[in-house]
C-alpha cells in the first residue's frame, strides 16, 4: 500500500487544556484528517476552532443533527469560528469522537471546505460542512474546549492523492 495516510502530529493531554493547536502543518499532502476523542471538565459547549488563527467572520457552516428523538438542521453565516461539533457532543465522558476532513488544504485557488462527522452516543450524531473564506494554504488548526480533560486525544493525519 502506498504511503498516503500518515500521522503528522498527535496530542494526548496530560493536563487540562482549553486550546489545542497543530501548527507548522507540512504542505506536502492533499487533504488533512483530524481525529478527536475528548471530554471536557466544564459545561459542554460547542466544539469550535479556527484555521491559521483567523478569528474574523470568515466562516460559514451547515449542520444536520439527530439527537436520538428528532433530526434538525441549522446554519451559521459570517461566523468567527470553525464548527466541529454542536453543544453537548463534547461532554464529561469519553463518549465523544469526531472525524474532520480538510479538503485540498494547500490549494491557493479555493476557499477551504471542512467536513465534520461528530458523535456522542449520549447526545447525538451530526454532519457539519464548513467553509473558510480564504484561499490561503492551511498551516495551523485549532480546537477549543471548556477545557479539554486529561486523556483527550487529537491526531492529525495527512492524506496524499498520489
Amino acid at each position, binding site marked *: *500500500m*502506498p*504511503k*498516503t*495516510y*500518515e*500521522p503528522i502530529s*498527535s496530542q494526548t493531554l496530560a493536563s487540562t487544556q482549553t486550546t489545542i493547536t497543530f501548527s507548522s502543518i507540512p504542505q506536502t499532502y492533499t487533504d488533512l484528517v483530524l*481525529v478527536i*476523542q475528548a471530554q471536557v471538565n466544564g459545561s459542554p459547549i460547542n466544539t469550535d476552532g479556527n484555521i491559521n488563527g483567523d478569528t474574523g467572520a470568515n466562516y460559514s457552516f451547515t449542520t*444536520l*443533527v*439527530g*439527537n*436520538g*428523538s*428528532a*433530526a434538525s438542521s441549522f446554519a451559521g453565516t459570517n461566523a468567527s469560528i470553525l464548527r466541529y461539533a454542536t453543544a453537548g457532543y463534547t461532554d464529561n*465522558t*469519553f*463518549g*465523544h*469522537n*469526531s*472525524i474532520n476532513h480538510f479538503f485540498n488544504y494547500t490549494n491557493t485557488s479555493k476557499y477551504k471546505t471542512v467536513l465534520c*462527522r*461528530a*458523535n*456522542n*452516543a*449520549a*447526545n*447525538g*450524531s*451530526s*454532519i457539519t460542512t464548513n467553509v473558510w473564506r480564504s484561499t490561503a494554504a492551511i498551516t495551523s488548526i485549532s480546537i477549543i474546549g471548556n477545557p479539554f480533560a486529561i*486523556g483527550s*486525544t487529537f*491526531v492529525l*493525519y495527512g492524506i496524499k492523492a498520489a
Partner: protein
Amino acid sequence: MANTFVKISTVTVGSGGAATIAFTSIPQTYTDLKIVLSTRSTSGAAVARVIRMKINNLTTSIYSHRALEADGSTVYSFTETGTDSAVRIGLTNASSATASTFSSGEIYIANYTSANSKSVSVDFATENDATTAYLECLGYLVATSAAITDLTITPEALAGNFAQYSTATLYGIKSS
C-alpha cells in the same frame, strides 16, 4: 515516515453465505481501527436489514447509540441502548433490494486499546438503484474498559445470513 493505515484482515463471504463476520485476535499495536463493509443479507423480507456488532463477545448491556437516518424523503433520529442483540451498528442490503446491490459502511473505532469507553463513528448507506435506500450515521458507544481484541458482526435475527460476495476489511491506524 511510516505508513500507518494498514490492512489487518479481509473477510469475503463465500457461496452459501455466512452467519457472522468476525475478526479475532486483533493486534494491539494500532491507535484506531476502521472497518469497511460491503454487505448484503439473504433475508427476503425487506430491502434493508439491521446488523449488529459484538465486542470481545460481551453480551451485557454496554452498547448504545444515537442515530441519524434518511430514506430519501424523511430524516429520522432515534436511540437504542442495551445488549449487543438490541443495538444496531448499521444496515445491510437485504435480498428484496435490487439484485447485485450491496450496502456500504464504515465503522471507525477511536483508541480501541484504551481503558476508556469505546466511542465509535459509524456511516452506512444501503443501495436499491432508484427506490428506497437508507443513509445512517451513528454515534455508537461500548461502555467497556477492556481493549478490543475481537469483533463480530451479525445480521439481526430476521435477516438471514450475509450473502455471497459480502466483504469486510479491518484496518489499523497508528498515530505515530
